[in-house]
């Protein structure tokens, strides 16, 4: 699913015909924009029938889903090489194939093998059909006759049987304006190699690999030659049709490209995927790290870091995208800062920022219970948590605080890009957010003190290891081994589990109190920095297997080490409490202790879901305060920056390198519904509600389950993950959706606040005037398995209310691999007990046995 291009398309309203446009995949040719070199050689697949995923690391991965037979999913890999030739020693230098093959399309497939009743894998047989539309631009431009195969188009069929008597057959046809004809001469063929194997190292799969020369010999200047400089597109349809194997319990391994229940049509070019040979659609994000030096009451004799106050800090950050602030030690200052930021945003016609922070109404609570951190995001926060370092893991005055880490799972711009879906053939824009499009962001502040080896550095390294452990728990999808003492419940939420984020980069923003190299400085002389990023601590210094095989994505870990601009050395962040207006030119001489680091995707021999594009930028801003001047009796002026730390700004671009799974009714599914986020809207100010829920309910396939979470969670905004799901861990039984399920699944939840008087049932939906309180206040959802659609519905008083739509959220047929999330907002002006609630619904394949 390509959300970013859709966003661009919708920026000028939906263009005519866009809805009928075939799906698009960007595939950056190797050795094009990023040439392979002797020093940094590339890896290219070898069409030898052994599909090693990382041979395709410069390409893209897709799922192969069998919408006819069900069964285990397979993998499809695409890769394309550019330029007329590779220089020697620039590609596959460790392998037998050198130089690599230019201007070729490689297709690799790992497809499930059939098994007999005792579980033994059997030989496979099937037909792979490839459709190639050479003048893709004409097809996309609705040129007359381009909707059917023409003479420049090809159909390649590969029939195979594996096993001791395995056979293969490769045929190629060309279009004739109405269908397909045999080639008139061998020279008309697109040179193709096809190999099938059943590798002993991967007994559950049959491997099929193609190499197709992408120079079909059209006249110079022809409109749509795949690698011509002006077009660089190709239409590609793929279909694997497994043939029945004797003795098997289930035919398996089907699937194709585009990945959809309806396979590519043999005669309709518009039903094939469009490959655009260019860089993947970038997903931009920006991060800001700033220690703002707002000191705690308990150390009131310690001056603030600079002249900054809540107003001036808010003014500098309100229009940022994702911000990590440290040293906002008091709850009431964190609360005020968040209010101030959002007031500024409202004045600027911007949506409020969402936040992660520890807020409470105990004005006398010392900072010993607080990290002093605030994480703000102008994008939706899908999950979040607070983690404190273990009690006593600190030195000196640091033990007067409770430093730790905040986590926010942030929806990228791709998550909220408009998606047009067909609702009974009517195009509509879905209101849901695609949960799969997220990154995990961590915000931290570690022990201060000396940078020479000793107790301070030792404790700091313990904290680095603790951070790494927490980051790993969060990214893998929980559950948390909560560090409760003495931090009450907050370290234990979110409860349960959530989708893994190990398949994408994560980002750590923080004051790490460790001197690091700047610009072109080497790590020599920064031993504690080397330790910090090394094994046993953050463990991010090595390259993953994917990074070693890939030549197109960033391998940078320390994003603000080298700043953009005339002086890449100007990366120092640790300022003096006294600043002059020349401070900006002095940054190269300042120490660097504030960071934006990258945790790469988990190191496996496979593709991540996302990678980081090259071209990140970084800047350091000391935030000199021209209004800070104070004059003594002799006329001397003293000036300050807003803090004794500079602000670090970083921009990055992500790219999706693995396409998403879609809803396949021929598989068994688990349905999950959860309340992910609650934001109190009752007042313009003040704090805090004590939240709980007596009812998180799901009804599916004739069974109903209701979970209650009665332990209060106090805060203005909480991320509870109150959930209910189908599956075998429920008692009484609440089974997953069976194969072929075509009914509906109903879900709802109620939000309550503990109060001095009667508890308050909060309103979390914009509708009113229902007869029943829960229909007036609670959101209700229905998943329709026969269509894949998810709708927010009217309520539950009448059976018909469960199918009466008030909002269309999305269609799992379009992807939503990790679920759909949506915010609903209450409107009850009478009681003012209103909240904004993030709901989460996922329909997830249960792995086939």
């Amino acid at each position: 699913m390509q959300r970013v291009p859709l966003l661009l398309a919708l920026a000028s309203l939906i263009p005519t015909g866009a809805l009928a446009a075939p799906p698009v995949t960007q595939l950056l040719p190797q050795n094009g924009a990023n040439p392979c070199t002797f020093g940094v050689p590339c890896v290219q697949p070898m069409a030898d029938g052994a599909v090693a995923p990382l041979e395709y690391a410069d390409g893209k991965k897709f799922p192969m889903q069998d919408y006819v037979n069900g069964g285990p999913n397979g993998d499809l890999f695409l890769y394309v090489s550019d330029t007329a030739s590779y220089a020697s020693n620039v590609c596959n230098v460790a392998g037998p194939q050198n130089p690599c093959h230019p201007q070729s399309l490689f297709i690799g497939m790992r497809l499930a093998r059939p098994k007999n009743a005792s579980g033994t894998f059997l030989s496979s047989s099937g037909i792979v059909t490839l459709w190639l539309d050479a003048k893709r631009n004409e097809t996309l431009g609705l040129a007359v006759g381009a909707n059917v195969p023409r003479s420049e188009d090809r159909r390649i069929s590969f029939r195979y049987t594996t096993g001791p008597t395995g056979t293969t057959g490769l045929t190629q046809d060309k279009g004739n304006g109405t269908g397909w004809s045999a080639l008139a001469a061998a020279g008309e063929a697109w040179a193709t190699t096809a190999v099938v194997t059943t590798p002993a190292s991967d007994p559950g799969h049959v491997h099929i690999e193609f190499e197709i020369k992408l120079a079909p010999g059209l006249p110079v200047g022809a409109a749509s030659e795949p690698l011509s400089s002006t077009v660089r597109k190709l239409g590609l349809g793929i279909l694997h049709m497994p043939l029945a194997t004797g003795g098997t319990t289930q035919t398996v391994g089907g699937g194709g490209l585009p990945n959809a229940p309806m396979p590519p049509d043999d005669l309709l070019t518009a039903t094939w995927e469009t490959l655009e040979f260019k860089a993947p659609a970038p997903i931009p994000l920006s991060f800001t790290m700033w220690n703002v030096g707002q000191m705690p009451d308990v150390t009131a004799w310690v001056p603030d870091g600079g002249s900054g106050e809540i107003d001036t800090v808010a003014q500098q950050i309100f229009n940022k995208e994702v911000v990590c602030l440290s040293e906002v030690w008091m709850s009431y200052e964190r609360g005020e800062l968040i209010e101030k930021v959002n007031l500024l945003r409202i004045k600027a016609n911007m949506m409020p920022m969402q936040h992660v922070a520890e807020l409470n109404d105990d004005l006398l609570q010392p900072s010993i219970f607080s990290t002093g951190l605030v994480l703000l995001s102008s994008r939706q926060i899908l999950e979040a948590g607070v983690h404190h370092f273990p009690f006593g893991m600190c030195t000196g005055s640091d033990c007067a605080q409770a430093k730790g880490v905040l986590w926010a799972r942030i929806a990228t711009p791709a998550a909220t890009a408009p998606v047009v879906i067909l609702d009974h053939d009517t195009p509509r824009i879905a209101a849901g957010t695609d949960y799969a499009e997220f990154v995990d962001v961590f915000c931290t502040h570690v022990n201060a003190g000396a940078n020479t080896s000793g107790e301070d550095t030792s404790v700091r390294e313990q904290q680095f290891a603790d951070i790494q452990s927490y980051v790993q728990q969060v990214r893998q999808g929980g559950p948390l081994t909560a560090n409760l003492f003495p931090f009450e419940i907050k370290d234990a939420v979110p409860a349960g589990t959530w989708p893994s984020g190990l398949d994408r980069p994560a980002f750590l923003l923080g004051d790490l109190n460790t001197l690091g190299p700047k610009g072109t400085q080497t790590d020599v002389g920064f031993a504690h920095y080397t330790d910090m990023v090394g094994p046993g601590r953050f463990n991010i210094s090595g390259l993953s297997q994917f990074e070693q095989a890939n030549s197109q994505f960033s391998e940078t870990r320390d994003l603000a080490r080298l700043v953009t601009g005339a002086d890449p050395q100007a990366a120092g962040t640790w300022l003096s409490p006294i600043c002059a207006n020349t401070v900006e030119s002095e940054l190269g001489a300042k120490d660097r202790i504030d960071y934006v680091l990258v945790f790469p995707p988990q190191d496996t021999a496979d593709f991540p879901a996302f990678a980081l594009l090259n071209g990140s930028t970084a800047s350091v801003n000391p935030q000199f305060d021209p209004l800070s001047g104070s004059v003594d009796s002799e006329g001397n002026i003293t000036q300050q920056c807003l803090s004794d730390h500079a602000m670090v700004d970083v921009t990055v671009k992500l790219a999706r390198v693995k396409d998403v799974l879609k809803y396949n009714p021929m598989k068994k599914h688990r349905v999950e519904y959860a309340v992910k986020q609650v934001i109190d809207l009752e007042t313009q100010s003040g704090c805090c509600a004590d939240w709980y829920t007596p009812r998180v309910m799901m009804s599916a396939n004739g069974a109903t389950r209701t979970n209650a979470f009665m332990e209060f969670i106090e805060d203005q905004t909480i991320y509870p993950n109150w959930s209910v799901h189908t599956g075998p861990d429920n008692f009484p039984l609440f089974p997953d959706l069976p194969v072929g399920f075509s009914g509906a699944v109903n879900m709802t939840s109620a939000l309550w606040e503990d109060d001095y008087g009667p508890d308050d049932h909060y309103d979390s939906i914009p509708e009113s005037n229902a007869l029943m309180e829960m229909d007036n206040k609670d959101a209700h959802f229905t998943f329709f398995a026969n269509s894949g659609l998810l709708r927010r519905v009217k309520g539950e008083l009448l059976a018909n209310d469960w199918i009466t739509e008030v909002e269309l959220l999305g269609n799992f047929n379009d992807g939503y691999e990790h679920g759909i999330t949506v915010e609903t907002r209450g409107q009850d002006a009478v009681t003012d007990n209103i909240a904004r609630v993030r709901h989460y619904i996922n329909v997830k394949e249960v792995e086939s046995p």
Partner: protein
Amino acid sequence: MSTMNLKCAVLALVLGGTAQAVEPMVPYDNFNPKEPNPSRATTIHGIDPARWVDTQTGTRLESIRELAFTRLRLMSRAETAGSFGLLFSQASAVTAIAAKVRLNNARSTGSTDPAAPAAVNAAELTGHFFNTRTGIPSKNQQDDVIAAIRTVSRSTDPMGSQNLRVEAVIEQCTNAACSTRTQLFAADLGGVHQGELAALRVQWDVANHRFVFQRDTQPEVYGAYTVTDTHPPASQFKGLVVTHNPPTYLSGTPVPVQYANAYFHDVFVNESAAPAP
């Protein structure tokens, strides 16, 4: 203490004796609409207009009077003298004020006459409690007696210092506008840092002809007076304010600017001034 009337303070402490029965204190407003104390029948958005009245004297370059999460925030930047804040809506019933106060930042900048007295910026619990004589026109504040407990920043504080003082004062207005005053009592209640919380209380103990001042859990300080205290004040000014008292400005740039940014919460008053639910 250098600016205090030390003799007066010592006298007051000696004469004060032990505390007599005064009205107990009750919650008036904690500035947290989400968890109000005292509780309310309905949710209030922002500052409760039934309990507070805006006040400002003088002119200012910039000001903020708002609920800031769980506190009241008063911020003022001005070139001239004046006060800015909130007054009790039923001021006549108020004989005691207590609140937690943080003066987060206060400073005086600009060119001043080196011989001028120090500029003063403060966060105060203050009020006109009585008048010493009868028969004056209702808007004539002359002889109104003012008591205040306040956190003070002075331009004579050491450069870069964030050390403030907590002070108690009793003053008598000497003109109709109360722009000039005579000090009846002053006491220094100790140092406090910028941003540090100080729990302050000022209470009129009419039976003993004195004011009771208290900071945090320190012993009460009694400010006795000898003037007549049986007549109501001309001004109903009682509340929470930030104040500026700039130095003499002769010439040059920059023009002196006074700044104070203070937070208040957990306001208590004498029981008979308790607000309606």
